[in-house]
């Protein structure tokens, strides 16, 4: 590990995309509107599909084209549509202005009750650094992608956990979970690119089922609490 050669265009490009995925994860922290968070999720998913296409082309893994297409169809198109329809549909019962806001998917995100945005981001940076360096130290070599990408994927997953913990509304917790899944997809591209397509498709199908159930439960929660906030989910203790 003395004189490190410059990375090839391929591995440099792959690392840049992986960093883009992590930046999208951080970007979710600063969004104040759910609609924008959904867009960012779609963009993040799009980056992962792009990386899959890159790997497929460079490493001659034609199955990954199919995976990239299916993954883009589900995570860039279907899931965001489901989420936006959900957010639009939740306007019922409120006053006019609220209804108008909700109709445009402008529902505000309830931030953390305990930490300011700046502190939350600092925490997320610390967590991401922890993930990055600890996984980097494991020296898990991948046949298809630079090991940096694996370290970044673990950072994405950890930051997604911070997002889920800090947010105080059900919709953005759900999006946090979905972006956690994106981090895991990234890890899968690095260390499990050759996994049989049928299993990958089964994972995606399973994600679809999970999204539908999340949607149902968010509707149920909104129906009872008249808001997306989790502030009143405190009755079960002890």
């Amino acid at each position, binding site marked *: 590990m003395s004189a490190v050669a410059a990375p090839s265009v391929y591995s440099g490009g792959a690392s840049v995309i992986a960093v883009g995925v992590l930046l999208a994860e951080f970007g979710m922290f600063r969004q104040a509107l759910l609609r924008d968070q959904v867009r960012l999720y779609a963009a993040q998913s799009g980056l992962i599909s792009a990386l899959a296409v890159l790997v497929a082309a460079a490493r001659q893994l034609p199955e990954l084209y199919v995976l990239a297409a299916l993954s883009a169809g589900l995570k860039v198109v279907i899931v965001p549509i489901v989420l936006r329809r959900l957010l639009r549909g939740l306007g019922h019962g409120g006053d006019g202005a609220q209804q108008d806001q909700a109709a445009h998917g402008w529902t505000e995100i309830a931030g953390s009750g305990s930490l300011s945005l700046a502190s939350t981001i600092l925490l997320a940076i610390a967590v991401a650094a922890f993930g990055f360096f600890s996984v980097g130290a*494991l*020296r*898990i070599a991948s*046949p298809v992608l630079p090991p940096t990408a694996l370290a970044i994927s673990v950072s994405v*997953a950890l930051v997604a*956990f911070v997002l*889920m913990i800090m947010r105080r509304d*059900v919709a953005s*917790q*759900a999006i946090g*979970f979905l972006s*956690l*899944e994106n981090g*895991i997809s990234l*890890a*899968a591209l690095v*260390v*499990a*690119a*050759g*996994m*049989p397509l049928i*299993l990958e498709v*089964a*994972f995606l199908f*399973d994600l679809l*089922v*999970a999204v539908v*159930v*999340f949607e*149902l*439960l968010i509707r*149920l*929660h909104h129906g*009872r*609490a008249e808001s997306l906030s*989790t502030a009143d*989910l405190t*009755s*079960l203790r*002890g």
Partner: protein
Amino acid sequence: MLAVIAALLAAPFAAALVSLRARAAAARAVTAITGVGSFGLVLALVPAASRGEVRYLDYLRVDAISVVFLLATSFLYAAVAVYSLGYLAHSRRDAGFSRYSRRFYAGLNLFAWSMLAAPMMSNLALLWIAVEVTTVISALLVAIEDTDGAAEAAWKYVLIASAGLGLALLATIFAYYAGAQVLGQHYNLSFGPLLQAGARLPHTPVRLAFGLAVLGFGTKMGLFPVHTWLPDAHSEAPTPVSALLSGSLLAVSFYAILRYYQVATAALGPRFPRDVLLVFGIASLLLAALYLIDQGDIKRLLAYSSMEHMGILAIGVSFGAPIALAGVLLHVLGHAAAKGNAFMGAGVLVQKFGSKRISRISGGLDLLPWSGPLFGVAVLALCAMPPFGIFRSEFEIVEGGFAASSNVAAAVLIVLVTLAFLGLSAMANRMLLMPRQTCHTAQGDGAAAAPVRGEPSGWMVVPVVAGVAALLVLGVHPPSELTALLTRAVHEMGVAA
């Protein structure tokens, strides 16, 4: 045998479809018949599994370990299917009842289907998918009561369990990576070849996979510190669902951990996986025992007791001695029967007194001529009193602990189990034996109709009696077929050497 496996996968799914379409009465009957039939089918698998594994279509694989978990799930499926005949008839009678009942039965059958499917998967990816399917279906069942509490519990459950399963998915991916290093890039995550690769597997990814699997599947098994959804979901779900959650779902997640344990032991040797399980087991058992001492809600009481028993299972595996592992597998069966009984008894008490608060329930023994004593028996069985199955299994686990020279851990286990016994028995004592009038007048809620003596429904007693019979059989004299199955399963766990 292949026909049996196919039927076991097809029947509950078909029953779910029928329940969605058919009238309520038909759904009830079909569910009860399918539940009891499934248990019969699993019994038919026992002799074959005791001799060796059965494979089907590349993706299905049933061995002795799977059958132990199938027995637990199918027994409870049968029990709650019969119990629901009475439970639903008495729980609600409003306008939306037929819709509720249709959803309930469809969900119950699908839930049982997913839990029966998980132990039959030959492949770690499919196992993960099956466990994830159990999560989403059971989250909907937790929410089915449509109360504030149910909505809260379902949301916490689906979010925490899905996040945990995200970690388990990472574990699956690292297991693939480890396997692919030895078996080539087109390795399909089948379990058998991974186990055979054993010591040739690279250590770091296997360690990562095992750690993540314990944390990830441990979330659904109720291991500390990722157990927080468990008491909420158990207390807010309808009672038959609580029984399945506790007796089967937690066990299915434990099954997934056991599979990773097998791989980790084969690749790394026993030390690392056992140490990990011991830490999680002791912490879970300690926390559960403390929460049991002063618990105000009958269903949360039983939920923490489940956590206690999951801790015992993890500790039992960490001992590693063959007798301890046999005890662990017997414990899975005993816990399913005893916890199913306890929840079903608690369901009757809750219906009778109209409250889950322990302080509102008293004199159960007088008011419920059958369910009262049977609930008491279930609690005693859960506390590992002889002559029930859990006494035998815990005895074997402790014996295994001393045999493996884990004297301190075994002593800690005994102390914590005794602590849990104190909490559980004191609460049960209060609900069953404390005279009725003192509590009633103290509450001053005379306006609410005082409960009258009698059982709500015979259907809610029959499966509990069957559960007691099963516990007695397990405790007094396990049939030779079962002993052969457990011996084979212990052999499969790789301790024969």
